[in-house]
């Protein structure tokens, strides 16, 4: 029997149709996966079911009754719960306080919550200290709190939106096991992902979304993975090569070094030398703890690791946005540790930062203004801007780097994520001098076409003799692009693999701190 039934669901944002005529049934006791690329409409669909957005057309029923939630409160009341892509816990409150939030009782009753938590710990093995503050918990623990929060009220339908992106491999296994357990107890689970690896391990059925439409819904027993990929991407699988493998994370199906990609990997002299780098955050917690690393000219060094092990801090320090507590960073013979962003740029460092919107570009400014954000003075005479010269230079740059926008004068916000990232790459790769490039999570949130362009640019930079440091949480991406992979764990490098000896298992073990090489 269907728990949730969607029929003819359509959602528009302005003139853009995010979801187009979606009809779907979620059965009782099934784990139903939603598969699709970034921007396919998966999150929008979840948000409709959870009442964050309201559909423009179509109907929903829950347990046979009409279901049109006006907000999360109403969805919760009807037994629909959701774990969001970005955690929805209040960071400076305790676990128990977060769990009490939104429960009906005028006066707070922490004891009731603690009793219920003990029940869930017994039932699902979900244990956590009720007094702990959220901001002190690890990412995996926070997610456990999210799931406890969902299961507190004995829901009918559990929706998980990209829940594995931030987890360690063993935590992913545990989460998928909980999904199965929840389904076994007669509840239904919607699991959103763009990773096929996960789907094949847990799903009963999978629905593929592309550009806001349902392409197909298939039972997973005996399903053909390759055909799912084709439905998801909308073109022939082979042409996408390693890019696709990295993007959809098909476990065990990735050629270690894809053909046609025989990079030089003949590193020359060291261009970046990091020694004993230490960084303590404002609370005194060490985020980088004696990290040492060398990148040579003409090589791509990948940094693998579960998020939150110091990658973000490493990126900020290399960009000059945070000052190291101790240790040295030398680029091409110049010491740049603790230097200002301008000094680092002058030393020949290009940065593609992890957070595109916060650090790489100013979305309200035009594309041209963003392309020359670091060189505003270049197009000014007597302090006044020469906008036509800047526009011309921007047009040339946009042509070279295939940045698609109707004009250099449109705002950065009007570009797709892929074109924004291409613009950032254009700016950073046009720096002069340039000897080293940091690319942190460079393909996050991009579609397959843009991912391919980013990879090509990074490889071309390497072939031109640049040293490249690639920080990524996508293992497949690292294995497809890097010449060498180092693994970061708790602020230190705990192992390194040379090209040809990459293996998921070995890297995964090091990432979770279980093995040292």
């Amino acid at each position, binding site marked *: 029997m269907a728990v949730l039934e969607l029929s003819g669901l359509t959602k528009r944002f302005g003139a853009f149709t995010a979801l187009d005529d979606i009809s779907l049934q979620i059965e009782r006791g099934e784990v139903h996966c939603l598969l699709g690329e970034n921007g396919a409409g998966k999150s929008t669909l979840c948000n409709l079911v959870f009442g*964050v957005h309201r559909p423009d057309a179509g109907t929903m029923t829950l347990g046979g009754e009409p279901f049109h939630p006006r*907000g999360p409160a109403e969805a919760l009341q009807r037994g629909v719960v959701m774990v969001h892509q970005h955690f*929805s816990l209040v960071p400076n409150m305790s676990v128990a306080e977060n769990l009490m939030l939104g429960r009906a009782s*005028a*006066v707070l009753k922490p004891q009731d919550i603690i009793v219920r938590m003990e029940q869930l710990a017994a039932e699902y093995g979900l244990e956590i200290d009720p007094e702990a503050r959220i901001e002190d918990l690890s990412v995996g623990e926070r997610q456990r709190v999210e799931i406890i929060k969902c299961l507190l009220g004995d829901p009918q339908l559990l929706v998980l939106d990209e829940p594995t992106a931030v987890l360690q491999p063993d935590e992913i296994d545990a989460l998928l096991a909980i999904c199965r357990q929840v389904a076994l107890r007669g509840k239904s689970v919607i699991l959103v992902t763009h990773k096929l690896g996960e789907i094949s391990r847990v799903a009963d059925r999978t629905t593929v979304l592309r550009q806001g439409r349902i392409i197909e819904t298939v039972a997973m027993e005996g399903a053909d993975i390759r055909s799912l990929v084709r439905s998801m991407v909308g073109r022939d699988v082979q042409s996408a090569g390693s890019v696709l493998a990295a993007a959809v994370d098909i476990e065990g199906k990735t050629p270690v070094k894809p053909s046609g990609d025989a990079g030089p990997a003949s590193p020359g002299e060291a261009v970046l030398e990091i020694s004993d780098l230490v960084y303590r955050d404002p609370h005194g917690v060490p985020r980088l703890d004696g990290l040492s690393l060398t990148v040579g000219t003409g090589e791509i060094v990948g940094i693998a690791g579960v998020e939150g092990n110091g990658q973000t801090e490493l990126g900020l320090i290399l960009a000059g946005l945070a000052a190291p507590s101790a240790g040295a960073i030398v680029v091409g013979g110049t010491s740049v540790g603790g230097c200002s962003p301008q000094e680092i740029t002058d030393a020949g460092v290009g940065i593609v930062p992890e957070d595109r919107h916060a650090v790489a570009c100013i979305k309200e400014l035009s594309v041209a203004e963003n392309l020359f954000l670091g060189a505003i003075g270049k197009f000014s005479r007597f302090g006044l801007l020469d906008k036509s010269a800047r526009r011309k230079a921007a047009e040339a740059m946009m042509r070279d780097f295939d940045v698609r926008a109707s004009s250099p004068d449109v705002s950065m916000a009007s570009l797709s994520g892929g074109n924004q990232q291409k613009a950032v790459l254009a700016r950073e790769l046009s720096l002069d001098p340039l000897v080293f490039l940091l690319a942190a999570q460079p393909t996050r949130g991009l579609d397959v076409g843009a991912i391919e362009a980013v990879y090509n640019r990074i490889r071309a930079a390497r072939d031109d003799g640049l040293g490249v440091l690639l920080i990524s949480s996508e293992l497949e991406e690292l294995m497809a692009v890097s010449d060498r992979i180092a693994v970061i764990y708790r602020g230190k490098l705990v192992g390194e693999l040379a090209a040809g000896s990459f293996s998921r298992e070995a890297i995964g073990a090091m990432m979770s701190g279980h093995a040292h090489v």
Partner: protein
Amino acid sequence: MIDEQMAVFIGSGLRLAVPIIFAATGEMLSERAGVLNLSLDGMMLMSAFTAALASWATGSPLIGVAAGVLVATALAAVQAVLSVTLRANQLVVGIGFNILALGSTTFLYREIFGPLSRDPIPGFAQLNLPWLAHIPVIGPALANQTGLAYVSILMVVVTWLILKYTSFGLAVRAVGEDPRAADKAGISVAKTRYLGVLYAGILAGLGGAFMSVADSNTFTENMTKGAGYLAITAVIFGGWNPWYTLAACLLFGFATALQFLVPALQLDVPVALLLLLPYLLALVAIAGFVGKSRQPSALTIPFERGG
């Protein structure tokens, strides 16, 4: 220093602190929910005027207080519509309300009472609690207060209880810290913030009414003289904690009262410098030189639901 002068100083310090305590306590709760009411001064001024008018017209200071609170709450409701529903800049809206309140109270006062009126306004009597009066030095000052002054302390306790022990208080804290998370936990961000702003309006109304019908028994143009701004700085000074906020209000009250004490003691300190003392203290406090406290993360940031 003579005891009598000390008693007068403490008495006037307390009386000057009471309106700020009311306003700051309500404002603290509203700010914990993420809404800053720079219009606090306007709410107080409107309430002071309305309370004086109603008390003068009916002869009952109690009706005066009720009318004052009603008007201040109405102002708060409009502020809530603008800053919560219409997502307007809370600071700019607040300044607009203060200009409006100054203009309309001045205008109405001149129209109704005439420019030079000194009509007495019926006010509350002091309670003169004998059991308090026996405490040495501070006793008489504590005992010779109107009932409303004691209510201000009661409101601090009530506000503290609300924040710590009720679901509403938890919702307030969550909404001010991470409205997105609160929304997804099924809390209505808008409703919580509306209630927070209305609460601030009620208390600012009590504070304003106290000025005209319990303290001075008269209304003068712009009689709040920036008390609302002081209340907001007391909240910052007090690190968004009800008890520290209370302490900051008392500090400001006594700092203001110094301008009466210093000439009485024939000290050669310019009164002007005493006038700016509370603001200077507040500036030092918000510059973060006094302790380090974290403001609610979502303070002054409107909430819009999104994926």
